[in-house]
């Protein structure tokens, strides 16, 4: 796991390992330490169980033939594992189209949000102008909007200018959803980069642009990556606007396409679970690789926010 590359900013855990204590161990203390260990590991086990078992059940179901899926009592482990569900999924549904639509809209909206958000964050932390401090409240207001407030105007508006069933319409929507959040997080990151470093670069003869490229950018990069991941996830998982704005099958995104599978007259649970596996695998892999950025990025935003 990438977590080993943790920056020194993520201080190691609060309680040192029991063995690290120098004092002689008394029996009562030792008993308490064993109790602590038992508590710790059973807690970790329960948490893992709670979070992972539903996903394991999805994987197992995806590998079962129909007669082992729809049966009582349930068959826990597949007796005759099969790839039938995956074959049917790729033959009968537009899963790859949905995947492409999701990737295009999520990627484009993330790039746009991060671009605008980074410029704004740099400006908000490095320049002084009228109303700068009020912008924090303004951006927070962006959090307050129930998505449902946006849906009527967006629907009417996009319908009028032909942006329904169109990548651009959904991308614009996801910028609206992602930008306040992205600006907020990036702002917190840029605040933690001291002005002195930039000034030192200027004294060394660097121009403002050079200072940004060589000093600010490398320091801001982890924050930019963390923010990108979160912005991407918001768009990747979004359901409501994709449902309203993308009406024809070839334009639907993964969350909507997946929900459509569930709403078919004869629900084929095996195929649905196979779709779940197809969606989850790349996401989980990506996620495990970037987990460290996620936790750090969240911290910066939350601490400052």
């Amino acid at each position, binding site marked *: *796991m990438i977590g080993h590359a943790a920056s020194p*900013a993520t201080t190691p*855990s*609060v*309680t040192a390992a029991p063995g690290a204590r120098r004092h002689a161990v008394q029996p009562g203390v030792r008993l308490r330490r064993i109790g602590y260990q038992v508590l*710790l590991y059973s807690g*970790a086990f329960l*948490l*893992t169980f709670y*979070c*992972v078992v*539903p996903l394991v*059940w999805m994987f197992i179901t995806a590998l079962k033939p129909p007669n082992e899926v729809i049966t009582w009592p*349930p068959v826990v482990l597949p007796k005759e594992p099969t790839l039938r569900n995956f074959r049917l999924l790729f033959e009968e549904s537009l899963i790859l189209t949905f995947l492409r639509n999701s990737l295009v809209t999520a990627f484009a909206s993330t790039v746009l949000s991060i671009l605008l958000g980074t410029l704004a964050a740099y*400006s908000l932390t490095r*320049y002084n102008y009228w109303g700068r401090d009020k*912008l*924090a*409240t303004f951006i*927070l207001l*962006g959090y*307050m*909007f*129930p*998505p*449902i*407030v946006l*849906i*009527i*105007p967006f629907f009417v*508006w996009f319908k009028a200018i032909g942006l329904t069933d169109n990548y651009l319409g959904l991308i614009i929507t996801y*910028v*609206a959803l992602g*930008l*306040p959040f992205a600006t907020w997080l990036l702002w917190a990151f840029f*605040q*933690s980069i*001291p*002005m002195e470093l930039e000034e*030192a*670069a200027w004294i060394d003869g660097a121009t403002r642009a*050079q200072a940004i490229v060589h000093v600010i950018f490398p*320091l801001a990069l982890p924050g930019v990556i963390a923010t990108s991941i979160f912005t991407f996830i918001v768009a990747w*998982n979004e*359901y*409501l606007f994709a449902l309203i704005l993308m009406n024809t099958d070839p334009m639907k995104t*993964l969350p*909507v396409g*997946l929900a459509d599978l*569930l709403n078919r007259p004869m629900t084929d*649970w095996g195929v649905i679970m196979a779709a*779940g596996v197809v969606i989850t695998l790349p996401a989980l892999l990506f*996620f495990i690789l970037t*987990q460290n950025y996620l*936790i*750090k990025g969240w*911290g*910066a935003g*939350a*601490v400052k926010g």
Partner: protein
Amino acid sequence: MSMSLRASSRALAAWPADVVVRVRASKDLAGVILVAPAILTLVALLAYPVVYNLWLGFHQKHALQQTATWVGLQNYAFFVFSDRQFWDSFWLGLVYAIVTVVAQLVMGVAAALLLNEDFKGRLIVRGIALFPYMIPITLSVIIWRWIFNNQYGIANYMLVSWGITDKPPIWLGPDWIFWTLIAVSVWTFFPFVLISILARLQTIPPELYDAAKVDGAGAVGRFLNITLPQIKTVLFIVILLRSVWMFTKFDIVWMWGGQSYGGLGEHVRILPMYTYHRIFGLFQAGEGAALANIMFFILLFAAYFYFKYFRQEETSV
């Protein structure tokens, strides 16, 4: 670029993430130019809909037609004074938001405290504990609908085979659907609390705990006197965001049964569901806009009092 500068930027990375650096900003037009695209985008995309919604709330308008008739405060008066469904949705939504937020907080903070301790496999468990939040909501709904399936669900099988009951409840039936919705919502969103709190816990200097131990403070005392004050600011923001988001939650509720207006949908019809059905079911765009505005004002109002009474000094919002 000089070596000393590289060294100092490396040294900077070693600073705790919460070091707040006072920025000496310079007066410059360039700053306004840099911030303008983001602000203009937000104004265009967010301010326009709000203004349009306010306008629409005073009108009667069919969702798919262009003409709108001015009706003044009639939409608002109707919901507030004579529509029982509105109040039912409001109260159900309030229960949904409060129960899910409290459960998420308890589980999220407990899990964060656990994952901040030192044990073998901690990093793996940390990764796993974030899964529920990272998979699409559609997928978590689908998985749990399968687990809670009335006929073939593994949840009922476990209840029966472990001898807990002979007649397992119908999880997705009228009696239980609201409570299973809450369970699924908590499963899906508690990692948000976990990740926020854990990130903050990691920045608490260990010396604080060592000092408390020397003073003889127990685990509970250390939590109350050190951990809690340190995570207070984050908790403030997390509670605010989660409450707003749970009160306006659409997708998970919609897919858990909210898409039908009557029948099962009635048992999970919180305000966003009701708004949707008014607009796209009954085609009353004006009424829907009024409902959306009511929700927005409730949130602004609640946020105002929340800030007034609970805001911490160090919160820079």
